[in-house]
């Protein structure tokens, strides 16, 4: 029967000594910490993929060499002509030539502060936003090249595709790492449970002989394993928190121009919501793995008794 009125703490199988209360929580805590890192990797890769898909998916860059020379076709400079064609083309939401200052800022990471004074002739760079990301830019590129020979139209789609594939691969790796960690945690609990079964074999046989059902004995083991695994999960999640916060702080500059967090509340806010939701899930997952593994291991073992 499911209802048992035995006093709490009554340990008829002697599991307090058989299922070690230090080694198992320690190992599960290590697994939970690894799982949290894998989750952070998963979440980071997913965020990158979203950022690239939404932000850069509709962007095209056009480079016009010798922008100030006269256009081959029509009036004005080569730059004016290219801009006119771009702005008159269907599917183009906006087309803006970068100023010298913007171009200098763009090149600064590679050329340093002296980039503006370089004697090298720089092409004009036009940032183009498309109304949709799947527009074929090849005909437009041909028209621009005809109007101003040497003009390069670089569609970011190819790069976006590569980066998206990369981020999906990273996500898959993180997912596999997560599954592996769960499998190792289950294996650790199964080994500990089997050691407990071997250590308490005589007690189990006596209790079984007195009429204990498989579910009763499995329940006693599962209760103990669940408690130890949950303890490990809580410790692992608490240890993971400062590690994840540090990683989030390091990653914050890449997410946007927001000022660096100064107050503790700001620091906590740098951790994505999904991770805040996932952290309490670690002890819960550890508990579920502990319960199911111990139940399965004990029930399988008990089949050898009549």
């Amino acid at each position, binding site marked *: *029967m499911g*209802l*048992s*009125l*035995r*006093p709490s703490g*009554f*340990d*008829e199988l*002697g599991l307090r*000594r058989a299922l070690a209360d230090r080694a198992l929580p320690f190992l599960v805590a290590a697994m939970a910490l690894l799982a949290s890192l894998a989750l952070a990797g998963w979440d980071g890769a997913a965020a990158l993929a979203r950022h690239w898909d939404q932000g850069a998916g509709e962007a095209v860059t056009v480079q016009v060499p010798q922008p100030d020379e006269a256009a081959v076709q029509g009036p004005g400079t080569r730059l004016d002509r290219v801009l006119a064609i771009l702005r008159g083309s269907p599917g183009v939401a906006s087309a803006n030539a970068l100023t010298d200052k913007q171009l200098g800022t763009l090149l600064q990471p590679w050329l340093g502060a002296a980039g503006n004074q370089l004697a090298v002739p720089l092409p004009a760079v036009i940032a183009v936003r498309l109304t949709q990301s799947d527009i074929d830019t090849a005909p437009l590129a041909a028209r621009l090249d005809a109007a101003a020979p040497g003009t390069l139209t670089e569609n970011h789609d190819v790069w976006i595709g590569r980066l998206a594939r990369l981020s999906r691969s990273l996500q898959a790796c993180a997912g596999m790492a997560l599954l592996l960690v769960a499998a190792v945690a289950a294996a650790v609990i199964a080994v500990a449970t089997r050691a407990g079964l071997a250590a308490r074999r*005589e*007690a189990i046989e*006596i*209790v*079984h*002989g*007195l*009429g*204990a*059902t*498989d579910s*009763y004995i499995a329940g006693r083991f599962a209760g103990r394993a669940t408690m130890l695994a949950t303890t490990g999960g809580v410790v692992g999640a608490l240890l993971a928190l400062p590690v994840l916060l540090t990683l989030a702080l390091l990653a914050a500059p890449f997410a946007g121009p927001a000022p660096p967090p100064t107050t503790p509340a700001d620091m906590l806010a740098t951790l994505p919501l999904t991770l805040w939701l996932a952290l309490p899930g670690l002890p819960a997952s550890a508990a579920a793995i502990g319960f199911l593994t111990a139940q399965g291991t004990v029930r399988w073992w008990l089949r050898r008794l*009549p």
Partner: protein
Amino acid sequence: MVRFDSVGLSYASGNGEAAGPEVLHDLSFTLPDGAFRWLLGPSGAGKTSVLRLMYLDVRPTRGRVLVLDTDIGTAPRDALPRLRRRIGVVFQDFRLLSHLSAFDNVALPLRLGGRPEGQIRADVTEMLRWVGLGRKHGARPPELSGGEQQRVAIARSVIARPSLLLADEPTGNLDDAQAQRLMQLFKELNRLGTSVVVATHNDSLVERHPAPALRLESGRLVRQE
């Protein structure tokens, strides 16, 4: 009722597959409800094997064993725990849980049966007092003498008022007065309807308490009185 029909038993050999030589051969007898039987025979005659079949520790290799009207050869495994709770056993080696107190050892069958803790406390306290261990209810088996451990084992076997009580050399570690007291308890339970089977070498005990007997020799039933 307990009934054996042409029962043979062999234990699995060490490798866990091939069956070893038969230790019981063609045993047939019936114990009606409320019967009392001595189980007699020299060492190695098969008394313990007969008891093991009766307390569902093994299933027969051939033939049919009915225990409390359940065929234990064909009963599904999950039907056996409930049946075991109706059987009390006094083991030769006591089989007490050494990490539990005498009280908790005796209380175990009641707790497995889901009895309320208040009733358990009253019943176990009374039972321990009856077997003369009222003051040692908190002692663990390693702290008790052989005779005291045997009395804890006896108390555990009868605490749940079993329908079938099996005892393997229950007086082995008891003095004469305690053995007499134990027989009084078994007879009282038998009078209240419990079937009792006692395996023993103690001839004087059998003489003082005459009752029908099953006599075994080399795994065969040689006499049924």
